[in-house]
């Protein structure tokens, strides 16, 4: 490990892992208030020389809709969106996602904002990347209280899409669609398997060889800290200031 890599931030490791999951994607959309997925997607865009198109929702500069808010979903329905990110107040071991609340629906002990596009995009986007930075038994649960979007579907249900991975502040899981279960893929630097087990509310499989999530190499880091950081600062100024110490370009 070179000297420059020792001060790599967790956000950079996570973004690089995300970019790895996006290889070869032609079009990636990033939901609002998702700075790390946005960083990963823009890194994929830079690495691909622009071949991977990135749409950051809510940002005029990086979206191109001219047919109203349904256009994102329409192009996804047409197979024109290869990857999307989804988070959840709760995510369970079957990759079911809950964005609605805690408690016996419709009663709610805690009410979250709502399901947004999850119950559709999860079915039609080939690579849905789940992310939830808070890796605890509160967020990664055995069974969600409300299924905003199911992780898997009955045979016969049209489902070209679905989850491929879950990334947290501790580790990266693969999702095995046939089995309907997560498999640990890599631990972020310094994280132990024990720690992951202790903080995960669901059971998961182990890989033959448990790897460490790679620390980005120098080339990748210079992309992240250079062009990617400058672009992310236009969309997420607070995040860019905190992580990269840079300000958005004057409008």
């Amino acid at each position: 490990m070179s000297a420059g890599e020792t001060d790599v931030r967790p956000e950079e490791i996570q973004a690089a892992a995300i970019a790895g999951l996006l290889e070869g994607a032609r079009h990636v959309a990033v939901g609002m208030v998702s700075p790390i997925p946005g960083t990963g997607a823009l890194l994929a865009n830079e690495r691909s020389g622009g071949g991977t198109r990135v749409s950051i929702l809510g940002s005029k500069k990086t979206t191109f809709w001219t047919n109203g808010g349904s256009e994102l979903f329409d192009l996804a329905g047409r197979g024109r969106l290869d990857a999307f990110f989804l988070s959840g107040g709760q995510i369970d071991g079957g990759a079911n996602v809950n964005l609605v609340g805690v408690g016996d629906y419709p009663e709610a002990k805690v009410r979250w904002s709502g399901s947004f596009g999850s119950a559709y995009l999860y079915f039609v986007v080939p690579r849905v990347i789940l992310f939830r930075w808070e890796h605890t038994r509160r967020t990664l649960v055995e069974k969600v209280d409300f299924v905003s979007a199911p992780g898997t579907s009955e045979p016969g249900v049209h489902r070209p899409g679905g989850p491929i991975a879950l990334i947290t502040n501790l580790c990266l899981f693969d999702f095995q669609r046939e089995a309907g279960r997560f498999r640990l893929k890599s631990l972020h630097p310094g994280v132990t398997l024990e720690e992951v087990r202790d903080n995960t509310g669901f059971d998961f499989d182990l890989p033959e060889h448990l790897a460490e999530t790679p620390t980005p190499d120098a080339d990748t880091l210079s992309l992240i800290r250079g062009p990617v950081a400058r672009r992310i600062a236009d969309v997420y100024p607070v995040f860019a200031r905190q992580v990269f110490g840079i300000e958005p370009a004057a409008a």
Partner: protein
Amino acid sequence: MTVQHLADAASLAALVPSGARIGVTKGEQTDVPMAMALELVRRGVTDLDLVTIPTCAFPASGMMLDILVGAGCVRSVETSGVSMSELGAAPRFSAAVKAGTLKVVDATCPAVYAALQAGAKGQPFTALRGLIGSDLMAHRDDWAVVANPFEADDPVALLKAINPDVTLFHAPMADRHGNVWIGRNRDLLTLAHASDMTLVTVERIVDGDLMEDETLAPAVIPNFYVTALAEAPGACWPQQADGTTDLDAVRAYMSAARTEEGFRDWLAAHVFARPEAAE
């Protein structure tokens, strides 16, 4: 069919009856009908069924919905998301859900769009992929799963069309004929087609006929679909005509609305005490 040109947001809001089903867009663009919403609060309208197209999860739209809910104007909200975006949760909305005083009809964005588009065409329902196996589907009696008649073993969700009684929005400009220019904000056009009444505040009224300008006409809602409008600059507050939102105003609201008392004080100061509220 002639568009009524009214004096102000209050005169527009006066056309909205209690019990109406109201359509509003998500507020990503500068279109939040805050002035009309506050007039509904002043009038003490009740039992509104709000349909958000498909969310109210931007600071200004979330705030508008939160105020209407907090003031007791709303019976139900059909939505795919309510929040103040990065500023946090909508306080009176969350409180009402917890208290069980507000019915939330949980949806997902593309289902709202598809059902609204069916409504805009006057069709009874439409089909949408996805949804099957979600708890959203389990709680909707206006969604159903049927067999695709053109494909073996292919269950597909059908969604009953959405047709609001009234649509409320703010737009950049209109002409004296009542044609309204909406730019890339195409959802407003779909909403106007789908709704029985469309009430619009605009930033400014321009001379001439927007429909006769070949570069502007493609982004116009023809007057045929507009019930009444009023020139009311700033009626989208806390959104501002330059496309930004006064986030300090939203934060101040959120801070006040953390409690019922704080919310009442906010209403007293910002809605009932405003001089232009005097009738």
